[in-house]
């Protein structure tokens, strides 16, 4: 059996392994990486380096700006044709690989199962690809009659100067449907994060506010930063529905572009994944006066807290009573399962390196079944996702960040919700938190190791050091870690399981961990004859 680190008196100081990791690097690299590895102290505020360039040659988890824009934010919306202007690969790799589930009503549009590309060729690189793009837009329109088309610029077309925005305007005028472009070339920014921001800007500019429809519910909300991986959004829709809360739009799990058009008529925005969507939350508040709160529906306790916080905002006795009724009923079910699972998982160790919020949220789920997170970090988050939004004013704006447009938002004098602004003011006085996110680090144990943009070398060393019972990351890491004898749970794709959000999601996750942490196969890796003396046979068959 592998010898585990002793955690009975809290987590050990990992300085030694940190030094060992950094010792392998060339000096300059070591100096740079050192700032992204932080031994956590939840009391004393520590600064972590994040959202900076990955060092060339380092085997990173990160993807590109296009992946963040098309793959993450726009991908889950079903009634828009996402046309990728570039060589075939960009569109091919983002084709159905993110498990964004969607429920389509009878007769509704659903383009998620399709992959659209201009498949540009060398002649387009030489002579320009704009003509081909226009033809492709026309062909898509004639064949599929979509209500909207999004156009995504990729590395080579950005370099040759194809203007997806101008083409979008021209085609919009010609075809009479909403068409908009995204300059989300892969080389922009330092990770997917830049793509999130670009997508947020585009949706806000071209979609949000296009439909000022009348109220349809007493309590109208949007859910931001929930992408319906494995059906997470379905579980949350079920809860809102039962509570009598009207979910106008989700950005962007199980969503339609149409629903985003009237999302500004909500009374409140709930923000799940702070990293990928806080821009829209901020802009919607500036322009329309819709306040936002940070919540997490990962973990049963987090879900209860999020529902209570939402009800608290509306401050309606009937809603509050209904929410309490749901929580009580659901927690009973959750606790029944938790009580059978926890004795088997208590004391186990987890590590998680994923995304821009999941590495934080999933620690809650693990905590509920007694699993300690010894080391964690994000793939593409910023300092505020680690240290809390308080640090935003002190974040240095570098050249890569400056590359991403920051929209100037003006108050919409007609539609601005003064009533909500007043409500927010009052609630603030009562101690209700808005626009607030404390980040991952204050919630993590002392001496846990926080690492931004972890790479292959660091992960390998840390596995040796901590010998965790479960490692959470993505598909690229999955089989590397498992070859080392440690189960890996994918937190992008959920290993094709889920949902893990909400109460039912928590139950699913507990049971998944019971399976994963309890499987016998890891004990059968060694051959039974490994420890036996070698037999020199005299009956061997020789040909």
């Amino acid at each position: 059996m592998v010898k585990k680190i002793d955690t009975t008196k809290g987590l050990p100081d990992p300085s030694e392994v940190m030094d060992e990791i950094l010792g392998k690097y060339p000096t300059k690299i070591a100096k740079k990486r050192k700032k992204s590895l932080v031994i956590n102290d939840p009391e004393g505020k520590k600064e972590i380096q994040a959202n900076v360039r990955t060092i060339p040659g380092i085997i990173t988890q990160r993807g590109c700006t296009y992946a963040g824009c098309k793959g993450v934010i726009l991908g889950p919306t079903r009634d828009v044709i996402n046309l990728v202007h570039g060589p075939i690969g960009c569109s091919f790799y983002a084709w159905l690989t993110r498990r964004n589930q969607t429920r389509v009503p009878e007769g509704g549009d659903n383009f998620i199962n399709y992959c659209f590309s201009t498949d540009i060729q060398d002649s387009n690189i030489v002579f320009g690809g704009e003509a081909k793009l226009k033809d492709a837009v026309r062909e898509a329109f004639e064949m599929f009659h979509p209500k909207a088309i999004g156009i995504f610029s990729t590395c080579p077309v950005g370099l040759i100067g194809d203007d997806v925005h101008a083409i979008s305007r021209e085609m919009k005028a010609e075809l009479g449907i909403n068409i908009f472009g995204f300059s989300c070339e892969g080389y922009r920014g330092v990770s997917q994060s830049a793509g999130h921001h670009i997508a947020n800007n585009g949706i806000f500019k071209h979609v949000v506010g296009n439909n000022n429809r009348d109220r349809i519910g007493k309590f109208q909300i949007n859910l931001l930063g929930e992408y319906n991986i494995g059906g997470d959004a379905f579980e949350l829709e079920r809860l809102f529905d039962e509570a009598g809360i009207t979910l106008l739009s989700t950005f962007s799990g199980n969503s339609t572009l149409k629903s985003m058009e009237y999302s500004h008529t909500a009374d409140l925005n709930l923000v799940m994944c702070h990293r990928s969507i806080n821009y829209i939350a901020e802009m919607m508040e500036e322009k329309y006066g819709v306040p936002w709160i940070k919540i997490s529906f990962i973990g049963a306790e987090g879900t209860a807290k999020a529902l209570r916080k939402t009800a608290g905002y509306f401050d309606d006795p009937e809603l509050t009573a209904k929410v309490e009724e749901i929580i009580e009923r659901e927690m009973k079910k959750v606790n029944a399962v938790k009580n059978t699972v926890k004795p088997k998982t208590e004391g186990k160790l987890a590590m998680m390196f994923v995304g821009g919020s999941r590495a934080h949220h999933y620690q809650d789920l693990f905590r509920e079944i007694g699993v300690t997170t010894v080391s964690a970090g994000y793939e593409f988050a910023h300092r505020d996702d680690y240290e809390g939004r308080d640090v935003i004013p002190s974040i240095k704006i570098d050249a890569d960040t400056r590359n991403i447009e920051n929209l100037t938002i003006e108050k919409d004098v007609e539609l601005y919700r003064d009533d909500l602004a007043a409500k927010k003011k009052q609630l603030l006085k009562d101690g209700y938190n808005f626009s607030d996110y404390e980040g991952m680090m204050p919630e993590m144990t002392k001496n846990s190791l926080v690492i931004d943009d972890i790479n292959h070398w660091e992960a390998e060393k840390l596995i040796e050091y901590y010998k965790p019972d479960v490692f959470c990351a993505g598909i690229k890491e999955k089989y590397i870690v498992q070859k080392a004898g440690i189960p890996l749970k994918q937190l992008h794709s959920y290993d094709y399981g889920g949902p893990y959000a909400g109460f039912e999601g928590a139950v699913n996750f507990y049971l998944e961990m019971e399976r994963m942490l309890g499987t016998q196969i890891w004990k059968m890796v060694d051959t039974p004859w490994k420890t036996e003396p070698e037999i020199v046979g005299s009956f061997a068959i020789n040909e």
Partner: protein
Amino acid sequence: MLLRHTTDKIKERKALTVNPAKTCQPIGAMYAALGVHGCLPHSHGSQGCCSYHRSALTRHYKEPVMAATSSFTEGSSVFGGQSNLLQSITNIFTIYEPEIIAVHSTCLSETIGDDLGQIVGKAQDDGLIPEGKHVIQAATPSYVGSHVTGYANMLESIVKYFARKSDKLKKQINILAGWVEPSDMRELKRILKLMKIKNVLLPDTSDVLDAPMTGKYEMYPKGGTTIPEITSMGDSLFTIGLGEWATRNAAIMLDNQCKVKFDIEDLPIGLQATDRFIQTLSKAGSVSVPESINDERGRLVDVITDMHQYFYGKRVALWGDPDQLIPLVEFLVSIDMKPVYIVSGTPGKEFGKRMEKILEERVPEAKYKNGANADMLLMHQWIKDNPVDLLIGNTYGKYIARDEDIPFVRMGFPIMDRIGHSYFSTIGYMGSIRILEKILSVLMDKEDATCLEESFELVM
């Protein structure tokens, strides 16, 4: 309906590709490089390329797929990626310690005009490549050809860099493998062993992308063609390239560089293509075909005669890569199936010529197309117009299979939702039996599930 917007109204398209039957060059370069022992592929471009390729290969193999990236930013795109690549080379040799770095370009670095040869030369001059270590490079612009082209380009580069002619001829032949699975590489080696022919197989992804679970992670698994083996290819008697698209460039390179004559054969999929492969091997190695191979062939023919009634006249739609599709379509025709629709996103005029020859006599109604706009949407539209009994292709076919209720056999790349391809070969006579078994299973499963109760058969 999963593909609810697909209709039978076919519109001539000149710009829009929908549901492609190909992907881009660099992933092929990455896969080929993984078949060289101790080699770390490196993607010279944005991080996203490398991440996408690693993810796609990992989903297909369910194995670690390691590769590094130059992590371009906007600055590198403006000023060129030289410093990114030089830094990468230093970091990779220091931290990950491979024997070889196999650099491939991307659409980004190609568009800005980075010259990989010049940059690697500079790395050499600046002493960034440690003694005894190697950096090879291949230009793989994503806007030319397809993933198969990238495979072919990297294969050519590997041969060009390592293969050398000494004054001593080696009694061995070279086998350049087309884009096949680790299981197929293993099967090729088994066949060659049965034939008693000494050989070098390049690339060889067996024991790399089908590595056993040992509880210990090895960044460079034991498999892969070794440097001395590749070097010795220049002294071989003959080269057999398996697949026109994937291997011709490398075969020509070996001929030009080391004067090793070559023959390009189809991948040995099905009866006739395997026959040709065995005959070529027999000639190249000056060996007669052993009884054990005759027996395997006999077993394949036996299965075909036993089950012919279930194959006869069945209409099939296929998509994938030319090197696989050509022998596979030929095989289906030979067992009296009707491959009526065939698409491949990979361009090349040879495809149409070969298809015409294979199909004109026995399946004159067949429609086939490759290159621009030859995508799965077009094939699906043909199916909507006149249905088929069977689909053969990569995982993306499952959406058509469900919508149209058509039995589906997964072959090609990527297969992301089933296992088996890494372990059970579909080449040679034995692999062909596996193809038949898979076809029969899905056809018969449907028959069992849908036939009238009174027609339900115990024996089939």
